[in-house]
């Protein structure tokens, strides 16, 4: 284990990006890290809003056209190694917005997330449960910790 991954194992910073969902998943994720009931901070998982100090990017919502560019910029700003988690039905496969215009290309939705940035772990649910978020972050951990 390199020094970097040793220190990373002690403080995993999660960044949450909201790309046009319904707020349900976002609040559950903030809840999962903040709320004393789930309290991911006890496992040294912290919430951050700064992409330069983030390790894990959690994306919620079907990516709307306006949010596509900021999402790519945020993804590029995160230093390597990084992991991306798509949380919730909308981020996973478009949710109720998938077939919004039938076969005509959608004017509003650019997603789902894996069309735009590579996704490492997918967490299902509408809305995602806090327990599932924790297991999603855990599933993405080997990517971070085994990196040289």
């Amino acid at each position, binding site marked *: 284990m390199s020094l970097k991954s040793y220190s990373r194992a002690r403080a995993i910073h999660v960044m*949450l*990006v*909201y*790309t*046009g*969902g*319904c*707020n*349900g*998943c*976002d*609040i*559950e994720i*903030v*809840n999962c890290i*903040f*709320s*004393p*009931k789930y309290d991911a901070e006890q496992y040294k998982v912290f919430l951050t*809003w*700064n992409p330069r100090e983030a390790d894990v990017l959690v994306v919620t*919502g*079907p990516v*709307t056209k*306006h*949010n596509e560019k*900021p999402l790519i910029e*945020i993804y590029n700003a995160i230093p390597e190694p990084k992991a991306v988690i798509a949380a919730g039905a909308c981020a996973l496969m478009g*949710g*109720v*917005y998938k077939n*919004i215009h039938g076969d005509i290309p959608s*004017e*509003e*939705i650019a997603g789902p997330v894996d069309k735009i940035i590579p996704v490492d772990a997918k967490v299902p649910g*509408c*809305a995602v*449960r806090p327990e599932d978020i924790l297991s999603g972050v855990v599933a993405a951990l080997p990517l971070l910790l085994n990196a040289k």
Partner: protein
Amino acid sequence: MNEDNNITDKKVIETEVTMGTVHSAAIEPYRVRLFVEDEIVRDAEITIGINHRGIERIMEGLPVEKANSLTEKICGICSNSHIWNSVLVAEKAIGIDVPERAQYIRVIMEELERLHSHMLYLAHGSEVLGHETFAMRVFYIRETVMEILRMIGGNRVQYGVSIIGGIRPRCELDEMRIQKIREGMDIIDEKILEFADRFVSDPMIMARVTGVGVLSQKQAIELAATGPTLRSTGVEIDLRREMEAYDPFEFDIITQDDGDVKSNLLCRVLEIPEATKIIRQALDHLPDGKITNRSWEMQDAPITKSYIEVPRGKLYHSYSLEDGRVRNSIIRTPSITNIGAMQYAAVGHHITDAQLAIVQCDPCFTCTDRAIQIIKI
């Protein structure tokens, strides 16, 4: 430099501070332009449209039952309000009687939602203030409500209680559930008052929130503010007084006088015991009988409107029915009428308080991004 308003002519130097669309201070994507002069905000402009997904467009032509459950996906905070109002439109249009027990359970769900929405507001407000500990404490109290919601609806966020003619069978309240709700209400009443006590008796917080983001009563009425944002300026108005479902219940309308962040926070804190009071009354007098009325037939109907009071203010849904399918769906959420208030609340205050002034109006930008037409009067 703001050249649109010819401010350069008056030799006033204004700086524009832009936030967004994705910014670390705002969880949801929206864009704020603050026109600053000597660190005092002179004008603010909020741009929406980033989250527009076009739910009304998807609803067009769907069977009315499907369209109703789709309205839940508008907002993850007040999802029950949306489905309730959407179902009310169909019931009004076709003329369906709802069993009394179903009405009571709908009211219980709505008040539970008010509880968790207001607590989320308190948590978000404390976080913006910089008091993360307070935010965590409120999240801990909120967890009680979330557990009750999961018990009744089967899901923590979107629970789909209302259907046309009543409520879903899985949301029936039996003795065990009623007992658990009562226990939860006791916990909330005790802890939220303790929280309010600590909040009010903390001189640091009070100094930060008093006199910040002031919205006068006249301004609030002119800007068509709604819900607790309007009530915190001293206007005693609450649509629950006029709603049929709330007729059997006694509750007070909470008003505050100042229209600043303190008034907004206190207005919502004090609405929490009122909500638990309504839930207790509903549980005490829960009528027996059916929970769904299935003896109705689909028929065509012209555009029907329905207004209800939701945690953030007044919610409007309307659509017409054609062969059991939804046409001309229009939805107006409380956050969109509060946008004017958000812009004006920040004006005249220090730039560091601008975010707080916007948050005090309880914005929900995912609700806000509807297709709208602004008519200048």
